[in-house]
């Protein structure tokens, strides 16, 4: 079987109607794009606002959590739960006057002893002493 060089690269005629089809394509390409849904913007704003309001109502602030933390670390809870007390600072007043507090050493770790001494030295009996 033989094949001529001319046959290999014979020029073919394109299908008719090419220019008309291209013209139609150019015109559809030049047409403005279809209108976008105008209502999408306002709807999106309303949805975002609703989610924000819901979130603020669900979590108004963080104070309750802070209060819970404070309560859980209170000395009363330590005693209730049988935990070792943290070395809280002791402040004592006798009426309006402050009382000097100094902790004494003990051999029992569960016992804490304090020496109280009025700063202005009027009375020897403390009005209150709370750990």
């Amino acid at each position: 079987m033989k094949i001529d060089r001319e046959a290999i690269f014979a020029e073919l005629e394109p299908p008719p109607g090419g220019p008309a089809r291209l013209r139609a394509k150019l015109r559809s390409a030049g047409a403005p794009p279809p209108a976008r849904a105008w209502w999408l913007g306002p709807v999106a704003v309303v949805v975002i606002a609703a989610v924000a309001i819901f979130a603020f109502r669900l979590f108004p602030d963080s104070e309750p959590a802070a209060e819970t933390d404070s309560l859980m670390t209170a000395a009363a809870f330590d005693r209730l739960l049988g935990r070792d007390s943290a070395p809280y600072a002791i402040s004592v007043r006798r009426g309006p006057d402050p009382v000097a507090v100094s902790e004494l050493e003990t051999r029992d770790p569960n016992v804490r002893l304090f020496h109280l001494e009025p700063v202005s030295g009027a009375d020897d009996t403390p009005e209150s002493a709370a750990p």
Partner: protein
Amino acid sequence: MADIDEAQWIAWYQSLEKPLYNVAYRWLWDAAESQDVVQEAFLRCWRIRDRIEPDTFKALIYRTTLRLASNRVRRRKLWRFVSFAGSDRDAGEQGDDDVLAAGALRRALAGVAEPLRQVLVLSELVGLSYKEIAEIMRITEGTVGSRRHRAIAELKTRLRAMGVRWNEN
């Protein structure tokens, strides 16, 4: 080319449709799809016409057509829709030997590496000069010459393996 109008664009299409169609056809072997590729190339260039320099338009449209045709072939392979019916159908009015030769030619051309085939089709089919092909493919004229030589040699070898003898006359 910002001032180019539709009528001028269609006139350019008419002057370049045939050679571009013939190039695309040697990739796709389908008349309707080849014409569609040429039109797609013109459509894409139309969208960026304000950035196209008139001197580079011809190279750009050839490059775009080649790329689009090549992409379609890859897509076909990807979807396993390769069909050899087109060439035989188009050659249906020829004799039996011609039909066989056309099928063999198509398979042989398809087997030639794409960069070589591009040069072969542009030089032998469209009749572009080495300089024009170099501009289209962004390679040197020397590379165009060597690729053309290798493409013809490879095509002859492949045809011979299929029992088809290349007749130079």
